[in-house]
């Protein structure tokens, strides 16, 4: 192989990495609308908050965050959603660790963590957010419930 071609392939590889990075940066943390009318079963996911089982959703919007032990952005995402919950009483944040819950991973089709499901007061899935949510994504999602 000629040095020019090898160098060309190396540059191509760098370009490919850059494209993957840019696409990921743009897409991560944005919301995707869900229309299949699926509901989340609180008992099944065994959500725990402050050491107590959760059996009620927020009266407006609940952010249900799926996390694993091997997740870089799960901690920061939880912090962000908890801060939101403190400032806005209509928001509830729930976190479920699915490291050993492959049943939930399959049921809710979770391909990456964090994945955050946006739920209405009855537990209907309105949107899903893959990756660390962007601040404006959360504001838009909460705003959707005001219309």
């Amino acid at each position, binding site marked *: *192989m000629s040095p020019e*071609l*090898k160098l060309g*392939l*190396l540059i191509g*590889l*760098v370009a*490919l*990495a*850059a494209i*993957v*990075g840019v696409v*990921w*940066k743009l897409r*991560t943390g944005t919301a995707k609308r869900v229309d299949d009318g699926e509901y989340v079963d609180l008992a099944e996911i065994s959500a725990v908050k402050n050491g107590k089982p959760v059996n009620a959703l927020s009266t407006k919007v609940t952010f249900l965050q799926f996390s*694993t*032990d*091997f*997740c*870089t952005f799960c*901690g*920061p995402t939880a912090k962000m959603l908890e801060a939101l919950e403190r400032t806005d009483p209509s928001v509830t944040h729930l976190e479920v660790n*699915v490291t050993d819950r*492959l049943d939930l*991973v*399959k049921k809710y089709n*979770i*391909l*990456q*963590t964090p994945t955050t499901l946006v739920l209405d007061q009855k537990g209907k899935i309105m949107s899903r957010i893959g990756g660390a949510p962007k601040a404006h994504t959360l504001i838009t999602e909460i705003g959707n419930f005001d219309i």
Partner: protein
Amino acid sequence: MATQIDPRGPRFGATITNVLSAIIFYLALDKDTEATGAVLFGIAAVLFLIGTVFGTSKHPFGWLFRTFVKPRLSAPKELEDSRPPQFAQAVGLFVSVIGLVLFVSGVPYGLAFAAGALFIASALQAYIGFCLGCQMYLGLKRLGVFKG
């Protein structure tokens, strides 16, 4: 064991891995230099094995970071869990073993392909803090690649 580490440590290590994988990729494109690339890839695999078993803090790049880089930086704004980068080391090990197996089996450009994959993953980790290996955890688990 889960401990809290400076997230810049794994990113520093990924920068070195990134440069190393670019060199291996280049060497692997030519029959004359492919074996040299395979030796470097073998070294990378051993480094990943150390990172997988002992964690990124005990990794030689982790030591370099603590000894030469960290003293020159300000205190970290936040710490991160040590388990995701350790898991990513296992994914790196997996990719390097695949590359070496392809090389030994004589698959054309197999080594270059694996080195290219490693280059992209380490670039994302090093320059934008995106841990591809961690992201793949659930996907790999769903495919039944590993249990646990």
